[in-house]
């Protein structure tokens, strides 16, 4: 099977993730969309690794997973602390600093 199809799939997933970040209101869902974008990057890395016949892309995919995990730790900590003090995880409610 032509690996280029996986690149199309990766771009599609990335676009869905990016659109989700812009459209969705709940901070958790926005964050899940960011994770989807990172996974799309992983798919692209692995596909290119296969295309070029070297392992760099597959190694980078592992690094990306670790980074994504670290981001979850930090991100959920922040989102949960906001939720506890405001009882809302909507990104639209966070507007104390508007002029």
């Amino acid at each position, binding site marked *: 099977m032509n690996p280029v199809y996986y690149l199309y799939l990766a771009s599609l997933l990335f676009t869905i993730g990016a659109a989700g970040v812009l459209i969705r209101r709940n901070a958790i869902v926005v964050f899940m969309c960011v994770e989807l974008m990172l996974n799309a990057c992983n798919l692209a890395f692995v596909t290119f690794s296969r*295309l070029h016949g070297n392992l760099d892309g597959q190694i980078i995919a592992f690094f990306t997973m670790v980074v994504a995990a670290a981001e979850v730790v930090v991100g959920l900590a922040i989102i949960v602390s906001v939720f506890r003090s405001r009882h809302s995880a909507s990104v639209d409610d966070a507007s104390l600093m508007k002029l």
Partner: protein
Amino acid sequence: MSATVVHSLWTTTAAGGIDKIPSPTIEYAQLAPTLIVAGAAVLGILIEAFIPRKGRYHAQLFLSLVALAAAFASVVALAAGGYGTTKKHIAAMGAIAIDGPSLFLQGTILLASVVAVFTFAERRLDPESHGNRVDSFAAQAAAVPGSDSEKAAVRAGFTTTEVFPLALFAVAGMLVFPAANDLLTLFIALEVFSLPLYLLCALARRKRLMSQEAAVKYFLLGAFSSAFLLFGIALLYGYAGSVSYARIAEVVDGTVQSVSPALADTMGNDALLLIGGALILMGLLFKVGAVPFHMWTPDVYQGAPTPVTGFMAAATKVAAFGALLRLLYVVLPGLRWDWRPVMWAVVIVTMLGGAIVAITQTDIKRLLAYSSIAHAGFILAGVIAATPDGISSVLFYLAAYSFVTIGAFAVVTLVRDAGGEATHLSKWAGLGRRSPLVAAVFAVFLLAFAGIPLTSGFSGKFAVFKAAADGGAGALVVVGVIASAIAAFFYIRVIVLMFFSEPKPEGPTVAVPSALTTMAIGVGVVVTLVLGVAPQYFLDLASQAGGFVR
């Protein structure tokens, strides 16, 4: 490429036995600055675990300052050993570049961090609560603001001493960021310095809701932009078959020696190169705070605890500009005719946008945030010069700018009323009558931001604009000067407000700081004046450091 070939890459080495895998050579001495700071950050975590609460503050402060000083000493030792000029090379199996710009920027980041740590450690500004001195950070980050558990934490005198190791982790990432010599290291360094900053933003003692809001905004937008950066890295990897800067530059220039059939195929696909390059540029411009990607800057700068804002505004900018310079000068010089027009547009909207929107601001921290956007535009003007002078002028500007910024935000922490810092501009009216010294110091910083002669801002701006004009961007310099004039208007307006209007009876008071903040502000003033009056030595230093290793 068949699946068996890729599979065999994993299996052949393993079948050959573990001793067949060559061990990587790491030049530990040359990586010492980063290793010292990262090691101290890990030690800081252990201090949190094992030292009793009473002793943590002093232990953490001592450890942070010693580590940053030791790291700075090793940067100086490397520079004196010629690693910035004659012995510049690529260390750690191609991951880290040891050269003039990386050593200069690492030195700048470390000095700026020392000053920032002074402001982190300040415990005299807030009145004592329950007999305990308190700093700018929340008593307990996990406690809901205004809840019983928070009151209990305040009564018990808890402090968030974790800010010191968090800051050290961020500094370690920032030290790697401008020195990264492959795209994977670039991405990891970006995350290593961003994640602690997201947390630091959420830790303000006063106005916690605003602080948490700033953190959530910074985090979501930062993660969004780093996903774009990562996808750009994936596309460039697909284009060149490697993430090493040198290799990608060769493929872009078409001077690559051995071309496999797969590489010949992807090399012909300019879409991979152009989209990949653009996405990586986007990720870096976000960290720099350039205009289409600046939306987070005012909110995060306003909401974050002011010492953190100063640290972020100075050190992040230095690190991000270093990475941007290396990307444009080492990886993508072959694409110069494609990225220069785009960057022209970014520079113009950044300079004008930052300066014009700043005029309408009524909060001093937001004002400084928009001013930092305008300054990002000025620095970018030097970046697109694409000449050796461009590099050295940007290095000088970054060094000058970072100390002014930390100093200015340190002054902001001093002006307080019952609700904490009085950041609304109307409260600053007549400050010059009430405390002339603080107002005068702040005026010096504002004049430096405006680029008035005899301050570091003037020498920096002059160097950057001169490099841009020599690099064939004369029109850009004209726009830059107009933007500076607009920016000068609102800086001068604050000075006029401080000195020539009547103080209000219920106005804010100026807290008397301990030696720590005094030192931070003092260093800022001294650097501002020295770089303004006698910049030549430092300009020479920056131009000696101006050569990237390829």
